[in-house]
C-alpha cells in the first residue's frame, strides 16, 4: 500500500508517496533523485548504499522507509559543502583514495559515522567499521585517509 512517508533528508522535510516497505535506498535514488547513494547488492552486504540515520551508519538497501520516518537522514550530498568539505572528504582527496568511485559514497558515510563514535580509531576499529566492499581495492588509502582526518599516525 502506498503511504505518505515524512522524511527529513539532508536537513529538509520531504514527503514521499511510496510503499512503507520500500527500501530507503530507492526512495533516495529513484524518487528524490539523490543519486550519490549507490545500489550494489540489495542485501546489505556491500555497503555502497550507506547513509546516516540519526548519525548512525545504516545500509539503506535493507532499511524500509517506514523505519526512518521522523528520523534525520543524511546522504553523501550533505556530508560536507563545497566551501566546507567534511575533513574526511579533504583527506580522501589528499590520499587520492577513489578509483572508479562507485563505492566511495558508502565508504565515506561509514567512515564519518566511525569518527563520530571513535574520533581516534585504532586499526582494529577501522577494520570493524569499514566492512564496505571496494572492487578497485582502495582499502589501503581508505585507512590512510581515515587516520589523516582523525589526526592519528598512519
Amino acid at each position, binding site marked *: 500500500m502506498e503511504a505518505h512517508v515524512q522524511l527529513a533528508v539532508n536537513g529538509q522535510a520531504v514527503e514521499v508517496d511510496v510503499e512503507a516497505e520500500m527500501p530507503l535506498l530507492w526512495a533516495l535514488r529513484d524518487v528524490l533523485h539523490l543519486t550519490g547513494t549507490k545500489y550494489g547488492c540489495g542485501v546489505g*552486504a556491500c555497503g555502497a548504499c550507506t547513509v546516516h540515520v540519526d548519525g548512525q551508519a545504516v545500509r539503506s538497501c535493507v532499511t524500509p522507509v517506514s523505519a526512518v520516518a521522523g528520523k534525520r537522514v543524511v546522504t553523501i550530498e550533505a556530508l560536507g559543502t563545497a566551501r566546507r568539505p567534511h575533513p574526511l572528504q579533504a583527506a580522501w582527496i589528499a590520499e587520492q583514495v577513489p578509483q572508479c568511485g562507485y563505492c566511495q559514497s558508502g565508504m565515506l558515510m561509514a567512515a564519518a559515522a566511525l569518527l563520530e563514535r571513535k574520533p581516534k580509531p585504532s586499526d582494529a576499529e577501522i577494520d570493524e567499521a569499514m566492512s564496505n566492499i571496494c572492487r578497485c581495492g582502495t582499502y589501503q588509502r581508505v585507512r590512510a585517509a581515515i587516520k589523516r582526518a582523525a589526526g592519528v599516525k598512519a
Partner: protein
Amino acid sequence: MKRRTLLLAGATGAGALVVGWLAVPQRSRLGSPGLLPVRNGEVALNGWIKVGADGAIVLAMPRSEMGQGVYTALPMLAAEELDVPLASVRVERAGNDTIYGNVATVLAGLPFHPLDDEREDGFGRAKAARWVVGKIGRELGINATGGSTSVVDAWEVVRTAAATARASLLGAAALQWKLPVDELKVRNGVVSHASGPSAHYGELARFAAATPPGTVRLKAREDWSLIGKPAPRLDLPAKVDGTARFGVDVRPPGLKFAAVRLCPMLGGAPGRVDASVASKMPGVERLVMLPAYGGSTAGFAVIAKTSWHAMRAAAAVDVQWEQRPAGPLDSARIEQQLEAAVRSGDGYAFHSSGDVDAAERRASRTIEAWYRAPFLAHATMEPMNCTARVADGKVEVWAPTQVPLMARDIAARVAGVPAEAVTVHVPLLGGGFGRRLEVDYVGVAVRVAMDAGGAPVQLLWPREEDTTHDFYRPMHVVRLRAAVEDAQVASLRIDSAGDAITPRWFQRAMPPLAGPVDLPDKTTSEGLFDLPYAFPNQRMAHTATRSGVPVGFWRSVGHSHNAFFSESFIDELAGAMQVDPVEYRRGLLRHAPRYRAVLDLAARRAGWGTPLPAARARGVALHESFGTIVAQVAEVSIDAGGPRVHRVVCALDCGTVVNPTIVAQQMESAVVFALTAALHGRIDIKDGQVQQRNFPDYRMLLAAQAPHVETWTVASERPPAGVGEPGVPPLAPAVANALFALTGKRLRSLPLNLAAADA
C-alpha cells in the same frame, strides 16, 4: 611465415580486411578541427584539442574512465606539451571518428614473445608485423578501453596533437607581433616575449586555427614538468561528494525504470510465463520479453515506476524456464573435458624451441604437475545497466561501456535503425574489468525502451542477475612437465586447455568481423608461451575448447591464471633443484636484464632472505603482461580464517611512468583484486545454473584482510606500457609460493585451499 600471417589475421579478428587496408600515416590521427563541436567561443585546433575563450584546454576523450585514471593521464600528456597547468585541461567525450580508435589494443593481440623486441633475430619480424597491423588498426578505428592500452595508444597521438596546437598558437603570436617564434616563451598557457607583448591561448586561438604549425617537435624528456611526477586525479572531487555520474545515475526527463530477469540456466529461455500477479503490483507498467542479445541469455524485463518496483515485480513473475537445447552446462563436467583435452596432446603450439621430445627421452627424471583455475565473474561494483530512449527513428543510449561504437552498433541492430541514428553517451563506469567490453546489456536496454512509448528507460541488473549472467573468465586446466638432465631443467612442456575468448567476443560484439573459423587466440596461452626463462627446449600448446559457457575478458585475461600455473611451477622446479626461488629465476634470466632488474628490486625491497616473525613466510613471482614486468613478494601467515597476506612488495618496469600516483593505485588495486580471486573466487555451474549469486556467496576481500602494498618502479626511458592489469598475474603464485614455504603444501588449484592441498 604462413603461420604468422594466419595468427596476425586472427589477432585482428578481421582476416578479410587484412587484404584491403589502406596506408594511414600516424599523423592523420590528429584529425581535423571539424571533428570537435565548439560552443561559447571555443576554437578547435585539431581533432583532439580545443581552446576556450579563457585559454582553458578541452581534450577529446575517447576512452572510458572506470577507475584506472585515464581522465587524468591523457590530460597530463596534453598539458605537458601545451605548457598549461593540469587543472586547466578538461575532458569532453570524443565522437566516433576512426582517429579515436585504439590501435594499441589491436597490436596487443599479436602473438609475439615479449623478448622478440630485444632479440636480433625476432625483432625484424615483430616490428614489421606491428607496423602492418598498426595501419590496419588505424583504419578500423576500434574504440576499446581495455588491454591496459589507453596511455600506450595515446602516448604519441595526444602529445603530438597538443604540441601541434601549441606550435600554431605560438605561430599566431609570432605573426601578430612580428617577432621570431623561437624567441617566444609559454608559461601556464600565456605566450610572451621579453620585449613586452603577451597573450593567453584563448586570445590567440582564432588566429592559430589559420596558422600552420610548421615543424612540430615533442618536448625532450629533461624538459618535462608534469610527466613522471605525482599529480592529483581530476575525477576525484566529484567522487567524494556524490556528484559523479555513473550509468545508473543518469536521470533524463520522463525516466522510467526497469529490471531484468534472465533464464537462470545459461543459454536457456523462458517457457510458460504467468505475469498475472506481477502485472497487478503497484507501480508496474509492463513486461517485455527478451531474446538473447550480445551472447547473453533470454528472459524478460519489467518496466515500472522505480527500480525497486521493477525488481519486485520481476521476481513475482511465475516462469517455467527451459534449458538450452544442447543440454545443461556443468562446470565439474567441463573440468573433466578440459583434462581430456590436455591429455589429447593436439593443442596448437604457440611456442616451440629446441627439441622437447629428445630432451624428455634423455632425461634422468621428469617433474610433472597439473594445475587448475575455475570460472570467475567480474562483479563490478556498479551492476550492469543501460539507459535508452527509442523515439522517432532515433536511439539515444547512456551506456557505461568500454566499447562505445559496439554499443552503438548493437543499439542500431536491435532498434532496426542505421548506426547514424544512434547517439551513445558514456558516463563514468563503476568498474569494468573487461565485463563492459560486452554489449549484451545495451541490446537488452534498447529492446525494453522500444516498448516504453518513447520514454527513456533505465534498465538495471539486480546483483543476482549480474553474477549469474556474466561472461566468465574461462576455466583452464594445464599440465606442466620438466625434464631434468645433469641436475638441470633441460625442457619445459606445457599443455593447456580452456575456451578461447576472442573468437566468441567477435561473434557477439562485432559479428561482421568474426571469421568463419576460430583462429588461434593468443589470450589462451599468454603467460605460458611467452615465458622469459632460458630453458633450452620449450613447447607450449593450447587446445581451445568450446564449453558453451559465455566467456569473457577478465582483468589480465589469460595471464590471470597462466601466471599462477607457470610461476608456481617455476617455484616447484627451484625446490627440485634445491635452489632459492629468487636465485633460481635469476639464473634463468641472464639474457633478460629487464626482468632480472625487476626481480632484484622486489627482492631487495622485501628483504628477501632476511628473518621474518615466527609463522610467516615469503613467496615470490615474476610476470610480464601488457608490456609491463611485475615482481611481487608476498608475506603470509595462517590464521583461523585461512591464509593471511600481510604485505606485498611490488616492483615493476612499465617503461616511462606518466603519473606515479596512478601507477601505485593500480598496483594496490590489482593486489586486492587478484587476492580476492586467489582466496575466494570461484563460479560453479550445476544444472545450467551459476551457483553463486551475490556478495555473500561470491566473496570479496574487505579492508580487514587487505595487505599493505608497497610499489617500486624501475626507472626507464622506454615508452609507457600498461599498468591496469599487470599487477594481477603475479599475486596468486606469490601467495601460493609463500604458503608452500610456510607449510610444505603445494596448492595447484584456485582458489587456494589448504584443506584440499596435495602434500
